[in-house]
């Protein structure tokens, strides 16, 4: 089985604990307006362009092992991100097994938008889930990401019920995810998930704009301003006051 990968990034420090290697996998079921890796969204097919790297498990493990000394020293590991890594479930499953066999810590950075069967089959394989939560109101979710959040919320509950290690990752997008209503909704949701208490707040920044130009993808965020430090702290405090372990950034 080959994995289709858009990029392998070494020395990543915001995608889970320690010094990590992050594998950005190609293809995503969502198309969030603010996506930072828009080049990863497009699903690959047989006659896809050659920009993407194709790795089998053995080759990818070779790349991962190169970073072992740093992972060991820092308590790091590998993070599978994307795109949506679970869109390549067989490959992901194989690579997670291979990592487990070698005692390498794994994290899966997922949107949660995958079928329940697929999700359930992967739940036990990773050490940590970085779980994206954007908008609770389904209509707004549909608007900003192009998909319903029903499955996302369902899969998150699975993680909670099975007591998996989870860090919620919530992008703070001005006018889209940072409304009082949405924050309250997220807090309310998390208060019902007794095992999930960690949340990373990821304030919007416009660093990815260049990628949109480069890959010739329409950019919908032109007029969006970044949040002020005060506003970010204010939001963080809402989570903290609700008993959640919130931090800014990864």
């Amino acid at each position, binding site marked *: 089985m080959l994995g289709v990968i858009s990029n392998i990034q070494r020395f990543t*420090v*915001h995608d889970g604990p320690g010094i990590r290697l992050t594998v950005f996998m190609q293809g995503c079921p969502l198309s969030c307006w603010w996506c930072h890796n828009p080049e990863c969204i497009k699903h690959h097919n047989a006659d896809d362009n050659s920009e993407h790297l194709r790795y089998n498990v053995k080759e990818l493990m070779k790349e991962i092992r190169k970073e072992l000394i740093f992972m*060991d020293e820092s308590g790091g590991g590998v993070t599978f991100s994307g795109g949506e890594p679970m869109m390549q479930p067989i490959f992901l499953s194989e690579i997670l097994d291979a990592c487990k066999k070698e005692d390498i810590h794994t994290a899966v950075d997922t949107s949660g938008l995958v079928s329940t069967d697929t999700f359930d089959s992967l739940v036990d394989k990773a050490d940590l889930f970085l779980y994206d939560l954007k908008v609770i109101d389904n209509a707004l979710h549909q608007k900003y990401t192009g998909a319903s959040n029903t499955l996302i919320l369902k899969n998150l509950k699975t993680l909670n019920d099975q007591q998996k290690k989870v860090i919620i990752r919530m992008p703070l997008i001005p006018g889209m995810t940072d409304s009082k209503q949405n924050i309250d909704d997220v807090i309310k949701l998390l208060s019902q998930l007794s095992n999930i208490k960690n949340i990373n707040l990821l304030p919007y920044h416009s660093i990815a704009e260049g990628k949109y130009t480069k890959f010739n993808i329409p950019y919908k965020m032109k007029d969006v301003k970044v949040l002020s430090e005060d506003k970010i702290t204010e939001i963080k405090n809402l989570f903290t006051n609700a008993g959640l372990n919130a931090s800014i950034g990864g």
Partner: protein
Amino acid sequence: MNERIKLLREKSLDAEPYMTHQRASLITDFYQSEEAKNCSIPVKRALAFKYIMTHKKICVMKGELIVGERGLFPKSTPTFPEISLHSLEDLEQLNNREKQYFIVDDETTKVYKEKIIPYWKGKTIRERMFNDLPEEWKSAYEAGVFTEFLEQRAPGHTVLGKHSFKKGFLDLKKEIALAKSKLDFAKDIKALDKKEELLAMDIAADAIIEFARRHAEKIESIIQKETEPERLSELKQMYQICLKVPANAPETFWEALQHYWFIHQGVITELNPWDSFNPGRLDQHLYPFYKKEIEDGSLTIDRAKELLMAFWIKFNNHPAPPKMGVTAKESSTYTDFSLINVGGVKEDGSDAVNELSYLILDVIEEMRLLQPSSMVQLSKKNPERFIKRAIKIVKTGFGQPSIFNTDAIVQELLFQGKSLEDARNGGASGCVETGAFGNESYILTGYFNLPKILELTLNNGYDPRTKKTIGLATGDPSTFETFEALMAAYEKQLKYFIDIKIKGNNLIEKLYAKNLPVPFLSLLVNDCIEKGTDYNAGGARYNTNYIQGVGLGSITDELTAIKYHIYDKKSLTYETLINAMANNFEGHEALLDQLQNKTPKYGNDDDYADDQTRRIFNIYFNAIDSRPNTKGGCYRINLLPTTSHMYFGSVLGAMPDGRLAKEPLSEGISPVQGADRNGPTSVLKSAAKIDHIKTGGTLLNQKFTPQFLADDKGIAQVAQLVRSYFKLDGHHIQFNVVTAKTLREAQAEPGKYKDLIVRVAGYSDYFVDLTVELQNEIITRTEHKNLN
């Protein structure tokens, strides 16, 4: 820092480098005197030293706690005409040159014209050297195959050991008398020479005691006029200290610092040894004094800190003596490479970090001076907070302290045959050089241009720049059927030039041993007294010579490009490549793009390229390691450039990795500037593929943006990177924490960035003092930051 330190520091920062003729005049007077005739060379040198120390002007400045200046005042710098004589044109150039200038006033020029030049012309070591060296050596030197460290500066490259803080020069005089009493004039054919050397050492010991006494005398005269009671009491203490040390062993923290500083003055006045001199493991040497006095209440932490700061300023007052020609190019800086070691392990192998280690780090951070350079020795046994504290200083962005791997240093010294205790008492000095402090003479003899050997190989021994055939005819490369054939030719060519270099070194070492012994320095390094043998003649317990390899990243990428395109992909011929190189790739833009951007490169943890790094390392190692020198020791290798990667680049045409003519080479063991594209972990992995333990030091530069180190998490992660690299036996790593944007702004408006200090190669320097080429090179070095 308090008001006093602030003033002294400002005075040091504001002082302009000035060339004084004082020492040159005094030594000329002495050499022409009756006393200088009819005595042996060692005794003559000792008497010359004593003459200078007895006659040079004594400088004690307002508010000073540590006294002693080599020149007339801060940054007043002497010359050493017995080694290398500055011509009148040199003086004019020194005065007018834009970088590393020295003010040369009319009086100095006049004295040079009328006295110094007429006496020394034809008598200097440099002239004798260049007269005696064979043509093949000169051709290689002119072509830029190697440099010669000893053409303008004396061998030195050594560091004070702990024993020197436990003895005074009166104790050493007793040791000299003992050694003298043991001489066997019947059986030892060298006994007479030894007697002269011991006599010279004895005179040198008297000289430094007299130098200190003259400071006491000067202080006494100041005391007469001083009215401020606090200063008066201080001056009285200083008076007592100068009468006590270095004649006697120091007993207090203050005495220990002043003791060292007199020794430092002696070493750098006797001659102009490379890397000036160095107190070495300062936190270890001073700790017994510190602990005792803190405990009995006679010293406060604030006072200890103030004294250390006063000590720091003294180093900064002493720029490297004025360099000319190739020496100025290979070491284009005022820094004189005194590298203070902090941390590491004790003689018994246990964690050496103590309260004083942290206090010294505070001083480094607060003083923010070019000199002394500073480093931390990091052992696996040292606590995490120690490395984090160091990185927090690194984060402030003036390139200090650099970080060294104690566990590797100990192994390196053991590999070289040092005892375990001597190894654990060792450290690194200069830029990154491993040494058994107090016991070893480890001479850097010159840089060696690894890529130049390839250029000569590709041109069958012909140097395109000097238009001479200087190397071996190893064959037309188009006849090399395999990559192995090329490597064999490279190796043959390299060995040929290493032989030339070593032949030259043998001659130069003998010149120094015979004509310029250093009886004073010999007092400081074990076992010169016991052996009755000068430091420059093999008196030290260990005697090592180095030839410093330069351009490891460049040569790797050059060979990798040839292997990849000519032999493996077969998409390129030597004819096309050599033709394109001869045209500096003009009209060969597509090929240039292939070579620069579509070829495996060192620094990416890619074995295709890194295998060539290992091979070159082994070829270089095998050509040099263990070869005997003239002093009973042997040759070792290390990999560091100071600024020679700029000079060596300037003598080199375009190369197969797509480097254009005259551009800099890679520095140290860092990748070619911009060639590392996978981030810092890959650079460290590539750099660790050579066997650091078989070297006497390697130098790796890394650059981080200030944002990366903004929080504790970033600092912890950099510490983890360092620990990981050290687990892989990496020897040294240093960080530049400044944005490329800031550097560009500094380049555009130097006036606004006068205080911007950056890491160059094994030392820090003011960015605006660097040549434009070096500034650009530093900007191009990859700036690592997290991209997510």
